[in-house]
């Protein structure tokens, strides 16, 4: 099979990224709505989405700000939610690590759930792709995803100004989080991490400055890692 042109690889990426728009529009619009409810202007909501480009971290920071948590706690918690970006970056490095620095610097901004998931899967499938094609695919996935993320926040922020308070939007953030968590519960280790995090969070809810969330999040991470190790060891033993 002849190697595909760079252009066709880019469009291949666009096609793979496009379906995510359906999920991103309501999610990002909801962020716009919640942000205006919290008192942000349309411009501030858009800036938030453009700078952070990660829904869960944006919602987490906003929620803590609304709760009057200290600035540092809001920042640390949102960054903890975004630690997975470092994992994506690490996973992409074997594929894109040899690109020129400026291209890697640009690509880094676009490292999100969708670009990571699609790219790593396609790079494994198409091991003959050169760097130009790998980057073309990566930016192809980002091309529909990122502008819609920005734009939907603006639409949501406009709508938010018109939505009455009686709509119980206080619960939009919990519902959204619960919905994002469920597809993450792929393995027993993920489930254990989530359960320990919930229990610890409720136990340590008395801690000031919403610090219980960080304590519980850390406990959940360690639990997930330990359960993964335990299961891997057990598998080894049973295969022997």
């Amino acid at each position, binding site marked *: 099979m002849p190697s595909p042109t760079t252009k066709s690889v880019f469009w291949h990426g666009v096609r793979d990224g496009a379906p995510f728009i359906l999920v991103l529009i309501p999610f990002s619009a909801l962020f716009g709505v919640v942000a205006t409810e919290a008192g942000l202007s349309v411009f501030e909501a858009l800036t*938030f989405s453009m700078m952070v480009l990660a829904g869960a971290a944006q919602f987490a920071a906003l929620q803590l700000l609304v709760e009057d948590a200290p600035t540092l706690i809001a920042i640390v918690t949102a960054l903890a939610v975004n630690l997975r970006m470092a994992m994506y970056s690490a996973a992409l490095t074997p594929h894109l690590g040899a690109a020129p620095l400026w291209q890697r610097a640009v690509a880094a901004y676009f490292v999100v759930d969708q670009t990571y998931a699609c790219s790593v899967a396609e790079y494994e499938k198409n091991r003959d792709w050169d760097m130009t094609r790998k980057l073309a695919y990566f930016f192809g996935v980002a091309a529909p995803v990122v502008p819609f993320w920005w734009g939907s926040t603006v639409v949501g922020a406009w709508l938010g100004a018109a939505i009455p308070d009686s709509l119980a939007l206080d619960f939009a953030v919990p519902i959204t989080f619960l919905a994002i968590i469920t597809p993450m519960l792929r393995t027993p280790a993920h489930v254990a991490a989530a359960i320990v995090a919930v229990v610890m969070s409720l136990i340590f809810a008395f801690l000031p400055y919403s610090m219980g969330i960080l304590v519980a999040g850390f406990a959940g991470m360690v639990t997930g890692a330990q359960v993964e190790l335990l299961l891997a060891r057990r598998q080894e033993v049973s295969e022997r």
Partner: protein
Amino acid sequence: MIETPTLWIVMLSIGIGSYLMRFIFIGVIGDRPLPGWILRHLRYTGVAVLPALVAPLVLWPEATGGDPDPARMISAFLTLAVGVLTRNVLLAILAGGGSLYAGLALLG
């Protein structure tokens, strides 16, 4: 209400911090492999921090002054259930939102 300077400090810090986390391996560390124990912990950040954040919000919602609220709890449960069964984020949100409004209307 969120103070404007606080908001901008938080937005800038998270924006810059998130960018650095996206850049660190791809840009700085290059092709060197990462210790397994770091990756193992990074895998569980989302699945740990998000539930920790959401659990108190479900049990003690601010809108009711921290009193447990049946409508919100049922809605949370249905969101989780639909999410686990369908693996569809959007359906789960719709189920949660729909049941919340139904619950608030019925249970007041």
